[in-house]
């Protein structure tokens, strides 16, 4: 890895934000769904579906935008199945989420197989051309600020979208009637029902939104960050998202802090594994003596401790995971 021209700190900061972006995106959707009382452990599967749908659509159409759109639609479609089973049939959310994960592994494997075959039959390359996926967009002027420029203003388009989305959702949750309803759905669905609000319709909306977010996060992985697809490319990131929503205690600033912490730890680890240092040698060598797995474990341990020490007041939405029967 060549990091000349950038100091190590700047490089790491940029990598951190890059690694955190899909987690923030998927986390925003999951957070909203959990606030309404629906826990979807199938978020991993939704991301994987987004990966393959985005990759295949971008490969066939030659356009990153089409890929992103397809990933969002595919994520919403799969989330619609989940919503049908959990919200409308009132089936168990944990089991349904596990089923969605299994289904997604199979469906993405089959889709990848068909995509490869179709491309080979048409004598086209399976991999994306370099121009097909998204490239990072540097905002003129701002991206030249030392350290923060590359970190915050030289990122993929979806990062900016995720931040805008985060601010909008935060405002929505705290300053609007819609936000009050969303939060009430998870804490007091019977009150919503009494106020004439359809619990099922609103929950379905939140689940679909979470599906769209997870699909977009999948597309980020396959057509922005890596320009490749592999059958295990989400690698547990969906479960990481679930943990980070808990870590942030169902608050958007907390969620984003968790995502950045997790992204930072991961990018530090990758840098340690792949780079040779001349400067910074002492610090890096010291870090290399601690088993890295302990750093990776850190966010989960912190989340557990946070739950164990603070949770008496509110361990999440009261009806989290409970079906609503009308």
């Amino acid at each position, binding site marked *: 890895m060549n990091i000349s021209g950038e100091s190590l700190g700047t490089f790491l900061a940029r990598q951190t934000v890059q690694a955190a972006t899909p987690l923030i995106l998927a986390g925003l959707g999951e957070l909203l769904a959990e606030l309404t009382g629906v*826990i979807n*452990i199938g978020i991993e599967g939704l991301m994987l579906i987004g990966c393959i749908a985005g990759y295949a659509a971008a490969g066939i159409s030659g356009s990153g935008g089409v890929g992103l759109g397809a990933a969002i639609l595919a994520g919403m479609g799969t989330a619609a*199945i989940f919503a049908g*089973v959990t919200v409308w*049939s*009132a*089936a*168990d959310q*944990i*089991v*349904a989420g*596990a*089923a*969605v*994960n*299994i*289904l*997604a*592994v*199979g*469906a*993405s*494997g*089959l889709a*990848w*197989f*068909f995509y490869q075959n179709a491309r080979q039959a048409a004598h086209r390359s399976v991999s994306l051309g370099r121009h097909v996926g998204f490239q990072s967009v540097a905002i003129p002027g701002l991206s030249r600020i030392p350290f923060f420029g590359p970190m915050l203003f030289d990122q993929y388009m979806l990062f900016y979208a995720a931040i805008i989305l985060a601010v909008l959702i935060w405002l929505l949750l705290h300053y609007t009637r819609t936000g009050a309803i969303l939060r009430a759905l998870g804490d007091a669905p*019977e009150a919503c029902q009494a106020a004439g609000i359809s619990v099922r319709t609103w929950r379905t909306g939140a689940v679909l939104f979470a599906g769209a977010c997870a699909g977009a996060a999948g597309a980020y992985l396959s057509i922005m960050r890596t320009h490749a697809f592999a*059958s295990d490319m989400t690698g*547990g990131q969906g*479960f*990481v998202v*679930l*943990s980070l929503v*808990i870590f942030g205690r169902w608050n958007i600033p907390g969620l984003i802090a968790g995502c950045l912490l997790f992204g930072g730890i991961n990018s530090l680890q990758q840098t340690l594994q792949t780079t040779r240092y001349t400067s910074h040698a002492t610090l890096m060598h010291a870090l290399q003596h601690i*088993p890295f*797995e*302990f750093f*990776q*474990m850190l966010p*989960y*341990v912190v*989340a*557990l401790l946070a*739950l*164990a*020490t603070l*949770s*008496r007041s509110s*361990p*999440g939405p*009261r*009806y*989290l*995971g*409970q*079906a*609503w*029967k*009308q």
Partner: protein
Amino acid sequence: MDPSVPPPTVTSPQSKAARYGVWHGPKVFLLWMAMATGAITLSVLLVLMVLALGGYPALGILHRWIIGAAGNRFNWAASVADACPLLLTGLAAGVAFRSGVLNIGAQGQFLLGALVSVALTTRFIFPGPPWCVMVEAMAAASVAGGMWALLASVLERYRGVPIVLSTILLNFVALYLVRAALHGPLQAADTSAPQSPQLKIIYWLPILIANTDFHLGILLAFAVAVALAVVLGRTNFGFELLITGLNPRVARLVGMPVSRRQFAIMFLSGCCAGLGGAVQVLGVTHFMLGNFGNYGYTGIAVALLGRLNPIGIAVAAVFFGMLDTGARFVEESSLALPHQMANVVKGVIILAMLVASAWMMRRGSRDQSPEAGEPPTPVDPQQVQS
């Protein structure tokens, strides 16, 4: 138990047990069988239809899939060997879910069990004959899995952390503990990957049918299923586990040791998963990698398909094993279809079963209960702690 207090009606459609499909009676069993058959047919047809649309011979695939799953005794043995870890993680999920405890930490408990068994057969071998070492490894693995699960139970009892959340997090803590160990003290000498050395051949579980994968651990797993069926279904202890999970208040009123039984549910559940990890290491893989399968999460699906009944779970696990083995046979054949297609079948079966049993439950509640529209009781942290 005081005979003057009537036992709580666990068959009430409102109960948590009914949510996961614990009903009694031959009629319900037949209905469940019909639902399962329908769901399986639906999902296989769906996958074959997709493949047929893609230009593949549907009947030929089905034929090879069945041959690969159970065509001869070798394929049979491979299917059952595939089913073995799923059976034990399925039992882990089943034991917990039937009491309404959402233990989704079987994955972490499975990993820790595997790790402990590797440690006790490669680096820290107690003196003694090989069978003794293997028994120790499996026992220690079960206890390790059980203790890990117990941690979640303790967090819920004393700190009000919902088990469904703590087990998600504990899965990751276990995963990185395992990777740290496989990178550190347990790492094989000739690699830089997180990987343990191979077990000496004397510590492999004996193969019972020559030239197949049918190892002793499979019998052990089925024995565990039968033992659990007896303990959970036929003893006071099993009944107490059910009631303390489903309705702690009633359990307390009739004088059951509620918190001890709640710990027992999680410990038993974790033991099954931990033993699963050990059996997979000693019987099949004979070494351990940083990535060691997703048996814990699949176990949840197996448990549901088996109606949370140990014998049903055994049947469901064998079925899932057959799906996997058959799909690998199709992949290795001239068609070269990806073996992941088995997962589509599994996923659709579970989703269809969920919808069907929810529908059945709604019908049941219309027939039996006047207050069918009642909202579910949320888990009240205060009540859990009291």
